[in-house]
């Protein structure tokens, strides 16, 4: 029987043929928790009576959500994570190393054909490396870190084919927002979404992460892309430690069954913006241009990579952030920060008036690094714009957009179309 990518990866890890709807117990390749979820993973490992994890090279804890710690309560959580990593001899990425979803691929912990679970909903990001990766809660993660296995319901699959080439001024973020807006916040619930087509193939691997990252914003369990030369080159030399297994690129069989196939032509897609307070409330930038903003954010697991800062610097070089507006830049990892510095991107953004904070989640989850004031509006490259998300529900509106749109907007202090700056530049 022809099978989808999800069916094939789950089957390979369960040791039997798997079809959508089957309940399987499958071996996992990597497990991960962050500082908003690891304390409960540690508690559940204790309750399980775990003296060890299934593989110390395949369980990582990452301190990224509130790093460095802004309050004593968080500091206690971080201390608990460090002590647990010592106890289990497992991987720990401490403050400043970066966001879990950048760290895990960057350090070679995920390869094509892998099955990965993370105690963070944006774990689906690794689908850009042809992995079946999904977010789970702390109890599931503890079970997986202890036994090396987890139960899964094999999902139905949906195929999204993107044709054409993105026009100048439009980026993978605009495509991701457009897809979430069109499909809706629960339009792909429990499904594995396969992204395909020449518009996807043309994207850099970093730009592909942005799209798979937002698969969960349409409810998906997995968001997976097929392996190609570009992807295999990206992972070359990154595979780490005991986990340096062979990559097992996995493509769907001809005739695999999809519950839905959608085709998009991206060749006329302009910059997109998600308006408050849901991610699927997406409109073309023209419809919100002019809305006042007081803060811009470039970073997060969606758009905190080198080419994101490069796109912003291209617009901001030689220009100034509006004096009533702040621009906060948060590199997704230390490696990203180093490259951004070495290539002079950092200087161009600082000269324009930007502020850099520690690599990590930054202000995205509302714990530190730029909590908006009452009745302020924010334009951010993040993936969520829920009321109160950034730490203050009092009249705060969050708009989501590409790094280029954020850069254009902070120049004007209003949401702005980046294409006019690119045309002039």
């Amino acid at each position, binding site marked *: 029987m022809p099978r989808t990518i999800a069916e094939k990866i789950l089957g390979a890890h369960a040791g039997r043929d798997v079809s959508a709807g089957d*309940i*399987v*117990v499958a071996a996992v390749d990597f497990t991960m928790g962050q*500082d*908003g*979820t690891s*304390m*409960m993973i540690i508690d*559940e490992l204790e*309750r*399980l*009576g775990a003296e060890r994890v299934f593989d110390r090279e395949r369980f990582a804890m990452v301190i990224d*959500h*509130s790093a460095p710690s802004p*309050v004593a*309560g*968080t500091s*206690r*959580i971080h201390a608990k994570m460090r002590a647990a990593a010592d106890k289990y001899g497992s991987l720990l990425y401490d403050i400043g190393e970066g966001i879990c979803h950048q760290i895990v691929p960057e350090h070679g912990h995920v390869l094509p054909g892998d099955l990965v679970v*993370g*105690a*963070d*909903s944006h*774990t689906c990001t690794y689908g850009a490396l042809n992995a079946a990766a*999904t*977010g*789970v*809660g*702390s*109890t*599931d993660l*503890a*079970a997986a870190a*202890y*036994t090396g*296995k*987890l*139960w899964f*319901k094999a999902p139905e699959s949906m195929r999204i084919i993107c044709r054409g080439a993105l026009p100048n001024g439009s980026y993978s973020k605009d495509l991701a927002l457009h897809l979430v807006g069109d499909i809706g*916040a*629960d339009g792909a*619930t*429990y499904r594995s979404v396969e992204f395909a087509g020449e518009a996807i193939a043309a994207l850099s691997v970093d730009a592909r992460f942005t799209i798979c990252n937002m698969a969960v914003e349409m*409810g998906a*369990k997995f968001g997976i892309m097929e392996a190609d030369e570009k992807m295999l080159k990206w992972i070359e030399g990154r595979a780490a430690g005991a986990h340096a297994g062979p990559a097992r690129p996995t493509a769907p069989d001809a005739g695999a069954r999809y519950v839905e196939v959608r085709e998009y032509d991206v060749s006329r897609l302009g910059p997109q913006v998600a308006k408050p307070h*849901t991610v699927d409330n997406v409109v073309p930038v023209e419809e919100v241009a002019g809305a006042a903003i007081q803060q811009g954010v470039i970073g997060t697991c969606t758009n905190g990579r080198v080419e994101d800062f490069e796109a912003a610097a291209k617009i901001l070089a030689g220009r100034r952030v509006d004096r009533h507006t702040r621009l906060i830049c948060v590199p997704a990892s230390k490696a990203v920060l180093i490259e951004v510095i070495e290539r002079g991107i950092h200087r161009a953004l600082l000269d324009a008036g930007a502020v850099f904070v520690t690599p990590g989640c930054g202000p995205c*989850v*509302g*714990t530190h690094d730029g*909590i908006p004031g009452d009745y302020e509006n924010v334009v951010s490259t993040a993936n*969520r714009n*829920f*009321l*109160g*998300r950034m*730490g*203050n*529900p009092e009249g705060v509106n969050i708009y989501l957009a590409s790094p280029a749109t954020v850069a254009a907007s902070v120049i004007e202090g209003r949401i702005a179309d980046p294409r006019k700056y690119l045309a002039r530049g």
Partner: protein
Amino acid sequence: MVLRGKARLVKPRDDINTDYIIAGRYKFKSEDMTELAQHLFEDLDARFVERIAPGDIVVAGSNFGCGSSREQAPRVILAAGLSAVVAESFARIFYRNAFNLGLPLIEARTDFIQEDDELEIDLDRGALRDLTQQRDTSIKPLPPVMQTLLADGGLVAHLKRHGGFALE
């Protein structure tokens, strides 16, 4: 299993995300679920916790629990003393987390249910009765995996009892 309690509606009905259940500004700085429970649904309804009593049942629309994977969301609902959530549909990760912890989630039509209605849910018969309105509706049968997890008292208890997964 039969659950009985007063309906506690959350608004808006649809797409209640985990940040609305418990905001990030609280959950990243405390491990004390009882303390966090004081802030349940705070950004949607600052007085929600004042009107709940042990055993009450949360009632919502579609896609309840979307957003983050943070397990504080179902844990805080349990810590607040609520016995179940009834909604038209649930987001995937939240759904697993709740059953892993022993919090029953029930999929049923909820648009007729009013605040304070007395609800009775019979998980074995697959029925929800609104005792106040004297109205019945069927509930979507629980998948066998979820029935097993609920019967065993959550995932950790399940693994300890069976020495591993016994769900296939």
